[in-house]
């Protein structure tokens, strides 16, 4: 399942108790997220999209857009490449 940016923003908003979160608002600086909130956001998204986010990669995440990009990267990496022998 591919993550949609809007859905990621909605999840961030739900966890942080915010009605509206835009893609470029910063989780800590603008939305006041604490480390426990970031953990909650990460786990909620992991469960929703069936992926596993590396903690080291999370250090580079600042906004919902960054989160979306990270999820897309993980989802693409997890999708097995098509077998050229079968692609006729």
């Amino acid at each position, binding site marked *: 399942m591919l993550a949609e940016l809007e859905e990621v923003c909605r999840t961030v908003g739900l966890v942080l108790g915010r009605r509206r979160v835009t893609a470029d608002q*910063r989780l*800590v*600086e603008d939305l006041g997220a604490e*480390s*426990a909130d970031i*953990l*909650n956001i*990460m786990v909620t998204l992991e469960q929703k999209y069936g992926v596993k986010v590396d*903690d080291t990669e999370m250090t580079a995440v600042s906004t919902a857009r960054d989160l979306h990009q990270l999820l897309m990267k993980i989802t693409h990496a997890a999708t097995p490449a098509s077998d050229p022998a079968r692609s006729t």
Partner: protein
Amino acid sequence: MPTAASSRKLAGVEHALRFLDDVAPFNVVVVLRLEGDLPIAGLRVALDEIQHRHPLLQTRIATANHEYSFHFGGPGPIPIEISEPTAPDNWLAAAEEELHQRFDLDAGPLMRCRYLPNQSGGHLIITLHHTIVDGVSAVYLVSELLSLCSGQPSSGTGQMSQEGRFPALALYPPKYSGTGFFRAAASFMARQMADEVKFRWRSRGVRKAPLAGTGRCRLLPMHFPAGLTATLFEASRRRRITLNAILSAGLVAAAQRHLYPSPRAPLRHIIFTDLRPHLRSAVPASELGCHISMFRFTVMVEREGDFWSLARAIQESTLRAARSGERFLSHSMSPKMMKMILDLKAFRMAATALSYTGPLNLPANHGSFTVSGLHAFTTNFSLGPEYSALVHLFRGELWCDILYLDCDMDSAGAQRIAQDMQAILEKAVC
């Protein structure tokens, strides 16, 4: 670039650390375990370059009329000492020496370097005065230094003209500045007093942390194997409890078992927090500076109590403190608080303290050498916590650098607490 005449007063935690430096040198010591050949000529060039980039490495601290000021410009080059080849284990004694060796604050610079070569590589020990660095910027500085040493393109972006020009206090969000600050400060003081009364009431008949005149810091490095580290991360996700709270619970529970004879004791615990992302204009990790604060709270610890209830209680206390703006108030009030603690000499700040820096983005490979380990230690003093730890994630393992005072316990006692901390964490997650 700041001119030679430019200066500014120390404020908040900077001021408190400078003030405490008269009691015990307040240094940050980072130890890098290197494999391969560190180019010494490259290290000298790299030190000169980072000093050129960072105004706070060209700084000294002047004292006049009980006030402290950073004076930019003037200090000589960052000193470096290269030892004769030595046994690999000798780094610990050298790191301990570095922790206790005072900087000449009036002269600067507030950084020095020492290299202890051994057969397979060596240990590079970087010492900085705590007033100019925190965990986040120390890691960045080390990464910058290693890149320059090996001639790789550095992540640095040239001279940091704004570095050190403003204290964190000048960058507080509007809610905690002006009249807002006084309202928040009054409520902070009321909460602190309520916690004090609660702590004193609950700790009747319970052991009190000893008050010694002096104490020498001792170091105990340990690291959790990759398997335990991975299991701790999984447990953190499954339970939705931060690693900071989990590690703190392990530390607090182990300290209670070994230091407090009663089956149940209220313990004061400190968690350090990074102010940088919470300031009005976020301060990047590339800028040196001591932008930290602390959350201090009381938790009831039961010898046979449920580990996860304790971890959750620590997380909730941390969140409560964070949401009430305690990071700003504690930061700005730390000079007064430290002065009071030193004047009264009646109680210890806490039983335990933990600072979790998180995953370190420090490349391991630097051409002719690799970084195979990283330790970090910060000075404590005899009225500070009895047992404290700096923890970070490096190469898939949690590195836990413990610090205790020889007036509180001997090395065997400190080892027993550390081993028990690991055993408690293993039992909780396995």
